[in-house]
């Protein structure tokens, strides 16, 4: 289980790295995957229609620059495969109160971004990266905060508050990019972690 969690969000943009890192435990996870989803085959057929077989498909999507401009002005442009489509849909429907901030967009722009997020969201079958996120986030309700998903907590529970919430250069776990320099590119490789004021993180 831990192995699964650790490798969950490793490199997406750097496609070659991704394949290499995931290859070793792929079989084991595939078995988990079969077990967990054996009763849900029909329900998830629709997700197979989506494109996005490549781990970094969300970066090469023509709408990425719009997404990065509109959403990335206030916070890191989180990789869409981190949350399932239902989560993004809920978020885009409530931009007036976006975690306490106002992030309203005109209807046309909001629709374009909502479509982009749905296209690139985590899903059961749509490329390895999206599939791993899908499995990790298929909670009872669609999570709105990435930091509150079980997989996220599993990955970060050993990190003391002094390094994040009490660290003025980090402040919040939602600021992935402060420790994961290539977070927007989907690279969460543990070996690349540099915590401001503390340096490398060795598990």
């Amino acid at each position, binding site marked *: 289980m831990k192995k699964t969690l650790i490798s969950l969000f490793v490199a997406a943009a750097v496609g070659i790295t991704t394949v290499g890192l995931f290859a070793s435990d792929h079989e084991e996870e595939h078995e988990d995957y079969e077990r967990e989803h054996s009763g849900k085959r029909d329900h998830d057929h629709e997700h197979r229609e989506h494109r996005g077989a490549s781990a970094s498909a969300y970066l090469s999507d023509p709408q990425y620059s719009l997404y990065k401009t509109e959403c990335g002005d206030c916070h890191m442009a989180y990789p869409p495969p981190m949350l399932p489509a239902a989560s993004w849909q809920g978020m885009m429907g409530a931009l*007036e109160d976006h975690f306490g901030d106002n992030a*309203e967009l005109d209807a046309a722009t909001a629709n374009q971004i909502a479509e982009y997020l749905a296209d690139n969201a985590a899903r059961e079958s749509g490329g390895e990266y999206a599939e791993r996120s899908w499995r990790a986030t298929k909670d009872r309700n669609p999570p709105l905060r990435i930091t509150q998903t079980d997989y996220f907590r599993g990955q970060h529970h050993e990190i003391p508050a002094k390094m994040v919430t009490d660290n003025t250069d980090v402040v919040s776990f939602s600021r992935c990019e402060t420790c994961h320099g290539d977070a927007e590119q989907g690279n969460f490789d543990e070996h690349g972690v540099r915590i401001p004021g503390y340096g490398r993180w060795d598990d």
Partner: protein
Amino acid sequence: MKTSIVRNLIFCGVLASGAAQAGTVDDLLTEYGGNGAGPFSAAAGKALWSREFPSKDGPSRACTGCHTRDLKKPGRHATTGKAIEPLAPSVNSKRLNERRQVEKWFKRNCKWTLGRECTAQEKGDLLSFLRTQ
């Protein structure tokens, strides 16, 4: 010779972005004026810029909370901590030159800071102040 061409090109670029800003701001001021607002005052805009508004939960809010008092310097998002590029057009040519962006940020930030949308008068005053920075 080459240097002077480059210098001229840069100069033209600065003029062009300055013209885009002036055009966008002038158009918006005309539009706000058409809604019965005006005349606009940079001094009133400056006062509004640093005025504090109570919030329902937490400390009072002001434009300066994120953008700081020195518009030529970067600000910092109150919640996420992300750096905000300087708002002063004199140091950031991307500011105030696109109508859609100006209106988007007025809408979001007035609602968050003041708890309501800004009036045409307030937006005109703020723009009149911001363009001088």
